[in-house]
Each structure stands twice: as C-alpha cells, then as structure tokens.
C-alpha cells in the first residue's frame, strides 16, 4: 500500500469529517422518519434533489445566495413534507408498511421526472465567488463551502436535539416513536405528529441542499448519490438516533475519504457497503448502540 505524507492523510481525514457532516445532515431526516414512522422513505433522495433545485432557482431567478436560501426553503420544505405525509403518504398507505414503500417510491418517480420535464437533464451549478476559496490550516487546504457546511450541519443537529428534548412537540414526537398506541390514548394526534416529523425531515434536506449546492451540482438524479450512503449512516448510527446519524455521518465521511485515498474511490465504495453489511449482521442496533 502506498504511504502518504502525514499532512495528506490529515487533510483526507479533515475532508472526510467536513463531507461527513453533510452526509449526516441528509441522514438526519431519514433516521428521524424511520424512528417515528418506522418506514424507509424512498422519496428521500428525490426530496433532496427537489430542494437542490429549489436552492438553484433561488440563486438563478431571485439572485439569492444559496446560504441565504436556507431561510425561505426550510419553512417551505417543512410545509411540503408535512403536506406530503398528511395528504398523500398517510391516506394512500392505509397503515400498511408495504404500501408506504410503494407510495414513497411513486413519489420519488414523480419528483425525479417532473424535475426532468421542467429543468431538463442538464447538470446545473451555481457560481458563487466563495466557492473556490480555501481555509488554510498549516499545509492543509480546506474548501470554504465545506467548512461552512460542517458548522451549519452541527448547528442544525443541535437545534434538532433541543427541539426533540425540550419542546412539547419534541416530547410528542418521542412519545409516538416509542409507543404509538399509547401516545394516541393520551390524546396525542398521531397523524399530526407523523406529518410534523416528515416535515422536519424535509426541512433538514432543504438545509443540506443549500449547503451542498455551492460545491456540488444538481441534475434530476443527483439525490440518488446520497441516498445509499445515508442509509448506511442511519444503520451505523442506530435507526432513529439523531446523534447517531451525525456521528455515523462523520465516521462514514472519514472511512470514505481514507479508503478513497488508499484504495481509489471506486473500491472505496466497497468499503462503505462492507461496513454496512457487517454492522447489520453483527450490530444491527448501530455501532454506537444508541436508540431513539
């Protein structure tokens, strides 16, 4: 195996952490929805794509910086997520998990192809002047947009943690996650809580989209690139665990970065899937043993 100078390895680890935080943010929504609704949301990647187009349009049409676009997009996507769960997934699934799977699959097909019809298949990017800036850390160069992404992702995770532990809504969400029949009996509107949870998941995606866009691109299939890795993170962190998602994201980011450095990015993917399988087989509650 090739050996690299320490500053190269160090930079790879830092890069992995920076990227991993954003993976974690994408996984946050997924793990929350799983923890509460016990469904695997197949529309997650498509919703991320939609949010990235949202951020793109905000920049292209309204001249809004992607970071500022977080402000309008978060409430918008919360409302969207709420509505989708309340008025589409909930009624259409009639309480059966297999139906939820089909409905979210259907939603992802719709979103991906409506985006294709509207924006066509071109790969679009935003041009912002800070995209090429770097933060210098000794000999190491870190992309400025990634550093911003890292910080904001942590902030969002912290806010979410506060929301879940300190507010009434959060307590209701956790009650439903633990025992949905019991929660219903004490007067919690389970349908509403489900929709709120889905809304929060979508809002997380809106933030992730705005953080990704300055150094990434958007096309109708872009969300797929993040979905499998998000699943891995969710499993690694323990399905339904918010801190687990963030830690899992950082871990996967570093693993991906280092295996990419040593094995090449193609086989590096293999490393992620093998970890995924091994964790599922031997520690299905997640590496960090956390549970919602």
């Amino acid at each position, binding site marked *: 195996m090739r050996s690299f100078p320490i500053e190269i390895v160090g930079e790879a680890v830092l890069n992995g952490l920076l*990227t991993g935080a954003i993976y974690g943010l994408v996984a946050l929504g997924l793990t929350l929805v799983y923890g509460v609704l016990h469904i695997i949301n197949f529309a997650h990647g498509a919703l991320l794509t939609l949010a990235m187009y949202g951020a793109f349009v905000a920049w292209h049409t309204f001249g809004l910086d992607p970071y500022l676009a977080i402000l309008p997009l978060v409430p918008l996507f919360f409302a969207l997520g709420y509505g989708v769960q309340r008025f589409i997934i909930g009624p259409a699934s009639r309480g059966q998990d297999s139906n939820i799977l089909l409905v979210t699959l259907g939603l992802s097909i719709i979103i991906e192809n409506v985006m294709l019809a*509207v924006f*066509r298949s071109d790969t*679009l990017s935003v041009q912002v002047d800070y995209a090429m800036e770097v933060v210098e850390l000794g000999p190491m160069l870190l992309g400025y947009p990634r550093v911003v992404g890292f910080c904001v992702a942590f902030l969002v995770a912290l806010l979410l943690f506060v929301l879940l532990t300190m507010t009434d809504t959060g307590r209701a969400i956790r009650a439903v996650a633990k025992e949905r029949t019991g929660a219903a009996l004490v007067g919690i509107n389970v349908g509403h809580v489900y929709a709120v949870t889905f809304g929060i998941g979508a809002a997380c995606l809106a933030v992730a989209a705005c953080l990704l866009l300055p150094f990434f691109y958007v096309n109708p299939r872009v969300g797929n690139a993040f979905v499998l890795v998000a699943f891995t993170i969710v499993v690694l962190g323990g399905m339904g665990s918010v801190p687990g998602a963030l830690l899992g994201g950082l871990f996967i980011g570093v693993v991906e970065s280092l295996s*990419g450095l040593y094995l*090449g990015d193609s086989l590096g993917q293999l490393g992620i899937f093998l970890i995924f399988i091994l964790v599922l087989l031997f520690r299905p509650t997640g590496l960090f043993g956390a549970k919602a």
Partner: protein
Amino acid sequence: MSQVFSPSRRALLLGAAGILAAPGLSRAQAAPVKLGILQPVTGALAQDGEYGRLGAELAINEINSTGGIKALGGAQIQMVFGDARSTPEGGTAEVERMNSEGVVAVVGGFASPICLAASQAAARYDLPYIVDVGVADAIVTRGLRNTFRFSPGFGSVTRAALDNLATLNNNAGRPARTVVVVHEDGLFGSGMAQLMQRELPSRGFEVVETISHPTPARDMSNIALRIRSLNPDLIIPSSYYAEFVLLARTLQQRRIRPKGIYCVLNGAASNFRFVREFPDAANLVMDVNHWADPRKPKTAELRRAVEAQNRFWLYNTPINYSAVMLVADALERAGKADRTAVTEALTKTDGSFTRHIMPYGPTRFENGQNMAAQAVNTQVQNNDIKVIFPTDFADAQPVFPWPA
C-alpha cells in the same frame, strides 16, 4: 445567465416544430420516408440524448426545407422518435416500435450498451442501424450487416489520443514525463485507463498512478490530494460531465496546476456549459473527442442555430446531424425507401458524401465502420473550444505546456 437553463416550454416548442415541419414545403405528393431517431432522453443519459435528438431534428428540418429526398420525388423525412430511457431494453423496445411503424432506418443510441442491444434488435428485421456515438468496438466487430458507425470507435479514438499526445509532447520539447490517469469506473474510463497503462511507457511517459472513481461521485477531494502528493506533469482524466467539472474545480481550488490536463472522451472538456460556467477551471484543458469540423461553414451555421435556442454546442448534435445526413445520402443513391437498398447504399458510401460536418476524410465503410472517422484534439482557449490537432482541421495552435 439566461444561457444556464431555459424553460421546458422550449422543449415543447421544439418538438412541435419538428412535427409541423414535416408536411408543408414538399413540392410533390411523394410519400414521406419514416426515419427512426433513438436517444435516451430520460434516465441517467438524458442530457446526451437531448442534444443528440436536437442534431437529428436540425438535419431533418434542413432536408425537408431544401426539397426533401430528391430521388424520391422530394419525399419528406418524417421522424419517428424513440426514448431509449438510458437502458438497453428500453432501446430494444423502441426499435421494435419503430420497425412496426415502418421506418427505413434507425439513427442513434448514444451509449454502447444501448447501441449493442438496439442494433441487434434492428438486425432481426434487416433494418439499417446507424450508431451515433457508442464507441465500444464490439458494436461493429460482431458481424451485424445492418449496423454502421459513422464516428470513430474506441480503438481508433485511443490510438489517436496516444499518438497525438506523443507528438504534442515531442513538439514542445518533452516537458511532460509523469502522468496520473483519473477515470470513471465504467466502460469508457476503465478501458481507457488499461490502455494508457499499457501504451504510455513506450511513448516516453511514466504512469505514476491510476485512480478510478464511480459515477456519480460525491467528492473529488481525495483524488486531488493524491494528485497533489504525486505532483505529476500531466493529468489524463476520462470521466463524464459532472465528475470532471467537480475534479477541475477541486484542482483549481486546491491550487494544483500541472503542465497540462489531457482528457480522452471526456464529458465536460468539450462542453460549452463547463467553459461558460467555470472559465478558470476550464481554461487550457485539452480533450480528444468527437468534434465538428470547424472549417466547414455549415458547422458555424448549425452552432448559431443551436445557440439561438439557448442550447450549448455539444458533439452529440453535429454527430447526429451528420448521421441523419448519411441516411439521406444513402436514400438518394438507393432511389427507393427500401431497407435492403438503403443498407446496400450505406455500404457503398464514398467521398461524394459531403453533407456531414465531421472532420473526417472521404467516407469508406469496412464492416460497418467508417474508416475515415477520427477523433480530434480540442483545447479550451479564450472561452472557446478550438481544434488543435490534427493540423488539417485545426483552427488554433496548442498551448502546451501550460504557462506557469
């Protein structure tokens, strides 16, 4: 900025224009000739498919507005479009439909797997199939009599890439010795990388590392890091659009500046979207790829027509334009809209076919492959894409090694 994306209405209008243009101008009452245009306009390859379809549409409109197929009494060409959905079975299904609609030939496919499956489906009905881009050599070497490829195959492109690189380097006084190959792990990239590793040493280069990445790739930071630690003279990337743009931007951001970036069949280096959106990252990048002949007046005219629609000028458009012109030429010589006759005529195509706009010598088919087809070297210079090699077709001098 309005170049960046244009509303979907345009797609609708374009489609409508294609349909409306079909009747109208014809002089005689000759029955229209149906031509199948197969492109992946949904799925992973949708971007390429769109631009391929655009080229075919432009050619068909031009033929129809200039008197149709004269040997058939001015018959108009009627497009039967099929979406291959970026999958081989999607392509097969559409060829079946086109056959049942009575097309005289099929043009397109774009990706090699689609071309392999679709040309085989067409072979069942002796339906002439003209591959537009699909470079896999197996497409023409497996002995299907109906299959033609006007553009160069993988072997030919890579041979040109290697030879031209050696010439370029020698002419500049051999500034480059060490090479890092970066490639996507699919059909294009992997084959490319193997070949580079085998062939570059005998041409005076040392391949210090070969790095593969998946498509889609989420991050190019690691590749940039490895490149920085290896510090090669030359980077040879073979990737699709989004991945190469990410790589070039990351290299720029991390201030990695080799003596040259020499792409082969790259999805972005010969793409005006990249040049417009990231002029600094794109500047002086070289590519070996399909490209239209810059010296033909028709090329400039077509490019203006494409850009007037707020579209970028990509190689898919001139290739498909030329492939449709090839069918029209065969129809003129066959004198009847009959599949066998068109296949015969295609086989016999020669230098008298001049309505194409590719930088090829006199057309000559051997086992379905146009032996005169070749890839050219392009370089991004002053926010334009110039041909720098071969000199017969060049409209600019190469800038190599890059100024420090």
